[in-house]
């Protein structure tokens, strides 16, 4: 498991990136993260939803309710235009950071390895 700080810092970029793929609801997001991390990351509801809320406050995502086939409606999220811009900014930051780390940690760690992160 990643360290707490790392997890905390990565929530926002991961979320925004996921939502860039399309609109999702909370549980779906958790599932995806679980898959992507190969089972290593499991977000809890009490972390996810407040964060989504926060992003809503910041107007980076917008939410809408959709009826479901079983039971009550679901709350879906999608990126706003502002969110897309924020995602770009985040991407740039993380890639720069990554480059710094790669230089420090020396050869044998090439950019191509980053292709794991899609």
């Amino acid at each position, binding site marked *: 498991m990643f360290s707490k700080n790392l997890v905390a810092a990565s929530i926002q970029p991961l979320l925004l990136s996921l939502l860039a793929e399309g609109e999702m609801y909370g549980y779906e997001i958790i599932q995806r993260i679980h898959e992507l991390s190969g089972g290593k990351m499991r977000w809890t509801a009490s972390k996810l939803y407040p964060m989504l809320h926060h992003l809503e406050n910041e107007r980076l995502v917008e939410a809408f309710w959709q009826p479901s086939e079983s039971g009550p*409606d679901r709350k879906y999220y999608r990126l706003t235009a502002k969110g897309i811009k924020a995602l770009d900014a985040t991407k740039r930051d993380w890639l720069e950071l990554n480059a710094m780390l790669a230089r420090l940690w020396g050869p044998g760690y090439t950019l191509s390895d980053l292709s794991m992160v899609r």
Partner: protein
Amino acid sequence: MFNLETALSTWRHYFAQRRGIQKEDLDELERHVRDHVRYAVEQGNSEEEAFWEAVREVGDYDGAEEEYRKVYWGKVKRNRLFNNELSWRVAMLKSYFTIAVRNLQRQQTHALINIAGLALGLAVCFLITLFVYDELSYDRFHEKADRIYRVVESYTHNDISRQNLIHSAPLAPALVNDLPEIESAVRLSNRWGEVLVSRDTEAFYEDGFFFTDTSFFDVFTFPLVQGSPSSLAKPFTVIITESVAEKYFGDEDPVGQKVEIKGSWGTYEYEITGIARDVPHNSHFHFQFLTSLETLRATRPKPEHMESWWYVEYYTYVLLQPGHQVEDLQAKFPAFISKYKGERLKQIDVHSAYELQPIADIHLYSHLEREIEPNSDARYLYIFSVLALLILAVACINYMNLSTARSAMRASEVGVRKVVGAHRTQLIRQFLFESLVLSGMALVLAFLLIALLLPLFNHLTGKSLSVTYLGHGDLVLGLIGAGLFVGLLAGSYPALFLSRFQPVHVLKGLLGMGPASTLFRKGLVVFQFIISIGLVVGTIVIQRQLTYMQNKQLGLHAEQVVVINTHGEIGRRLPAFRSDLLKYPGILNVSASDQAFPVREFVMGLRPEGFEETDVQAKLINVAPHFLETLDIPLLQGDNLPEMYEPAEREYQPVLVNEAAVKQFGWDDPIGKTFTCCVAPTPRVVGVVSDFHYQSLKEEIAPLVLMPTWWSQQVLVRIRAENIFATLDQIEDAWAAFVPGEPFEYTFLDSRFEQIYQAEERFMQIFGAFSFLAIILVCLGLFGLAAFMAERRTKEIGIRKVLGASAPSIVTLLSKDFLKLVLIAFVLAAPLAYLAMSRWLEDFAYRIELGPGIFLLAGGLALLIALATVSYQAVKAALADPVKSLRYE
């Protein structure tokens, strides 16, 4: 049975009640949990497990709230209510309440049964307590009650004692004069029998007519509405009670008016000089008319009777000076008696002693001859109290049983609460609160029941009790306290027990079905059935014994025999009286005896020949000629007693013995045997009579001697069944002619025999009522328990049905367990009941057999009732749609 929706709404509710998270977010969280469950189910997990996992993953409330709050603080202004401790507590209380109500609504039948059972138990207990309180309160309304005593005299002659409540006129004044410890004394005499009171054209028979002294109102506390006690000093005046005033005078003022009263001492006009409050029911005697002793003195043919120490007529009460001990006073009595009666007592070789009876003890403990009114018995109070406690125990056990059973059903709710982080104290409080709400409702119902049952209860006990909630404040408080206590007790079990368990255990549904608790519950059912079976057996036995006693042949002809009380006045003139009476067609025969039948205690016994050094005795009844014929007692051997007899003339006097005597003394040829000791001339047996009951059937027929005498205490007149009243009038006229001034007091012999069993009859009725109640309670409990059991096995039943089990087999399956319990209870109860009833029957010399039939009847009844109660639930379960039951999961 796990129900996702229920679990979800429960969980949701707990999150919602803390109000830290907004509704929309809660919706989202809930949706999250649903999704998780759906996903997990697809993976092959059970709904229940998935739910728990999801909910646990969401985590406890506080953590979630913290996260949300971080986000909120920018948007939502802090809710002031949050920080207000008081309104938070109110919110909590309200939440307890809503949950309680929700539970009640969900399990209406169970709740109803629970409440009904407890209410019934509480109501019955309350009524019994009311009764006991009332019985204990007799005669305490007198201001000076702790200083008022009644004088009882005991005579001893030849080691045989008798107690006497009726005293001579000079006793009271002498007591006051000679003994400074005595502040006042009062004499009370009631001319036994009714008086005829007429005013203008109306006439009624009344009882409660007493002659008394002016000190009456000094000693007793009977408030006078009008008039003063001093009027009791004048003859031919009367003080009446309010209801009498109303009856004869309506709205008019009775004081100063006249009524005509006809009593056994004559018919006279009396002026009304006062009105007294009606005597409260809890007094050992009740008067309606009070007149002065002077009236008696003026109307007697022999006024010297009022000066004689040997003519007895008055109940005598004394009022002690404050601060004096009864014992000191009693120590002075021997000297007192010796002063006034010593000489004569020595002559007749009788020892006399006075005792003082505290007035408050009379009602419960005094059972002497010639009590003014029949008294109650302290033993019954004990028995009823025990019975009432038993019923309450049954009701409470039911209540606890059912509530804990229901709590097990709510196990899932408990698990949810624990997962969302409810503190243990919260859970405890929730359960206690619920239990209290239920028992509160039971209390309300109990009060209703009390009001409803009171008339029936009064009828049963022969009282007229009423509940004035102000007057019985302490009882009402006690009842409320009891109800709340039971509620707490019942609520504590699930509260403590359940709240301790880990959610995992709750999950597995082990709670409430563990072997220990099932055993406990079964044990309680068995206990209840033992009590019920015992009570039913008791009722059957008592009822049979009563019927037996009432139907058993007495051995003498008791119907249509008039028994006239006398004081020996008629004496030797009995034959003349007899021939006068026989002139009337309605009279069949006349005789007399010196003992009142049924005989309570014997004055004398005779020692038979051959038993001189022993204690063996035959009881003695002195009889007048024609005794055997009058009572139709067969003579088995030898001759009857002669008609005319002069004791001084012979060396022997003829006596009769009964069969029991012959048997016990081992006399092959009884004729000619004699009795040594105590009387002269020597009694010699001339004939044998068949055994007859001269006492209550509680006693064995003991050896009896019938000896001729002139001194009679009871004149026995056998009359025809037709025109009884005309015949009675004729007897009275003849009586008045022979013994003018002697009151004509009579009873019927058969009613005298019947009256002894009155107490037993009432006992039986009350016992029967208790059994009925106990059975109802047990049924209620069983009903609820059966429902619970059936519900728990719903899935199992559903599967069985699907697999082809028939309805009857399912009914058998469910009933089997309970019937086993009833059988166990029967096996345990039967010997206990047998022992208890044998003990009771020991008091009766003539009694029924305790055959197996009785027990089988009781057991069969119990089985039938259990079957009926349980099968309702069983059939309901068996007929339920199996699809629905399987869908539960």
